[in-house]
């Protein structure tokens, strides 16, 4: 909802293709390529008619932009379509800053926040500056960098349930680094990391919130 609000505020004509489901990353990362290819094909069919495709989550965007090419490496017809879809797919902050050319969305919030670099967003898509620029553009918000903002939170999809002890040990480090900043909120742009951090912060009764960047950007917009 926040993503729609932000994009509409910036004058974007937003559509939500109602038959959409998933990009296929769950199956692909698990090693289930035929299943992932099915789901990815459905994604491509659903979305290829649009001008731009915006995903408010880094790892979904990287699946489409980076890994579809590998998934369809042996299927030249689908490969072409996958590459075309990949080329016009953007993660939300990438789209706002680099396609729309906007650095200040116009919202207002309050408080000290810290930003977590989601792995795929950072290392597959190379996006680190854009979200920070947009956060700094929110009136009333100050950003405090944490130690190792680029360290993995330990989610890793299947990894989080297959190796819960390692996953939560990594998460503990991440949340300690968040806490050390004194920020009241950790902002990220990947639904996996957010669910992961939220789940542990809730368990621990932490006062810190984990917020999707779109939610922060949408605050104070009419």
């Amino acid at each position, binding site marked *: *909802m926040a993503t*729609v609000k932000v994009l509409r505020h910036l004058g974007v*004509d*937003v*559509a*939500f293709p*109602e*038959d*959409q*489901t*998933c990009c*296929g990353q*769950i*199956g*692909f*990362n*698990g*090693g*289930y*390529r035929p*299943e992932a290819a*099915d*789901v990815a094909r*459905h994604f491509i069919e659903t979305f290829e008619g649009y001008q731009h495709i915006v995903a408010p989550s880094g790892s979904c965007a990287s699946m489409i932009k980076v*890994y579809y090419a*590998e998934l369809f490496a042996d299927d030249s017809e689908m490969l072409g379509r996958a590459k075309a879809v990949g080329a016009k797919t953007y993660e939300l902050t990438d789209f706002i800053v680099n396609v729309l050319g906007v650095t200040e969305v116009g919202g207002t919030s309050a408080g000290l926040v810290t930003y977590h670099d989601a*792995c*795929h967003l*950072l*290392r*597959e898509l190379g996006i680190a500056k854009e979200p920070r620029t947009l956060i700094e553009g929110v009136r009333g918000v100050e950003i405090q960098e944490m130690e190792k903002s*680029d*360290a*993995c939170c*330990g*989610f*890793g*999809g*299947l*990894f*989080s*349930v*297959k*190796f*819960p*002890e*390692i*996953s*939560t*040990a*990594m*998460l503990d480090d991440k949340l300690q680094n968040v806490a050390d900043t004194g920020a009241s909120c950790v902002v990220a742009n990947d639904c996996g990391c957010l*669910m*992961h951090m*939220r*789940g*542990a912060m*809730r*368990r621990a009764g932490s006062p810190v919130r984990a917020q999707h960047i779109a939610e922060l950007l949408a605050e104070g917009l009419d």
Partner: protein
Amino acid sequence: MPQVKTDQFKSASVKALHDANIQRALGAPFAHFVDGRKSAIEADYTEESWDSMRERAAAIKAQTIERLDYYLDLVDRNVRRNGGHVHFANDSAHANQIVLDIAKQHDVKTVIKSKSMVSEEMGINEVLEQNGIEPVETDLGEYIIQLAKETPFHLIAPAVHKTKEQVSELFEKFLKSAPTADIERLCVIARDKLREQFAKADMGISGANFIVAETGTVVLVTNEGNGRMTTSAPRVHVAISGMEKLLPAIEDVGLFLRLLARSATGQRITSYNSFISGPRAGSDEDGPEEFHLILVDNGRLELLKDEVLREALSCIRCGACLNHCPVYRKVGGHAYGWVYPGPIGAIVSPVLTGLKQAKDLPYASTLCGACRDVCPVGIDLPKLLLHLRHKIVADGAGVWAERLAVRRWHNAMKTRQKLEGSVRLSRLLLKPIARGGYVKRMRAPVVGGWTKGRDFPVPAAKSFARIWADELGGGRS
């Protein structure tokens, strides 16, 4: 070959998480590796950028691997021309037999070794002992773990998990030295013992960091000088190497030495760089009378056969991927259950020791990509891990419950209606056991692990698709 325990990753990793010494070792020393590498790269004085060096190295390695047969033949001819002997070994047992035959021929009683990961694959120390030959590791870390009868914890810092107190205990037990927590004193104790060994050893066994095809030269880097002693003091020198460690020309070595030192230890250059081209010759005053090079396959051809996994043969064993891996940094080296730990181990071990047994290893990664970022030869480790996962599933070796879960996911993602139905079902199941929208404990296959340490959110009553249709002007485009 040392016992393969790759199937015990889960239990071993949990054990490591609770081992205070391991957790301490994984802290400061590794921060030192990471920071050292970073500052060495940033402070570089060369005109060539790091990325350009990496790309060149990756290209040289890829080209060498593509034409491995040609370069192996070239090495064979050039080592022989230099007066050395070359042996090709299919597997560990074969390589061990070659070493034993050479030892027998020269009536070898004691062997000194400088660090060699391939010899760890072979488990050669045990084999030598069984044949009445005393092997002594001369790299300090390797020496410590040899006394402790362990496998290396790390590619270049094999004993980093040992405290000085533990080292003192080992020395007390095996070298009868007085207990001390003084690190310098411990070094002196080891040095005195190793000097004796250097003086009396009949054979030196080394690894090879690089082998130059056009000159038949083994390049060896160490920081302790033990490599040089091992390869020059004894009568016989046997270098053992994986058959992938070739570089085409002597001009290539400089680039790789720069990449290796910076990536491994944050040095601009390793302290001792030895170039060994054959035995003592002509007017040489020292050096071995005989030089042997053993090139070991031991599963590498399996890597070579696979067009994706082949990339792993470019590895120069610097350890940077371990140092930067958030999983390795939690569980350490032994959890991986064989000689090679960390991300590169999770790729190499399954192929070299059996995919089925090691099927957890390629999954022991969040695919965060930190390893790929730091690899000096540009190996796309996440891609290789994903490829192995695909192979595991395609071979039918996947976990049954996961297969079932993926099948359900696959079915649910076919249409929006099915997806909504599946989300409604999970809401129905979770809501009765939830409090404040979150579940504290789920008893379910595969996803049940989530609630070990994290609450799980109950899906919202109204899906985004419904909100879109009802409130956000759905259908508008």
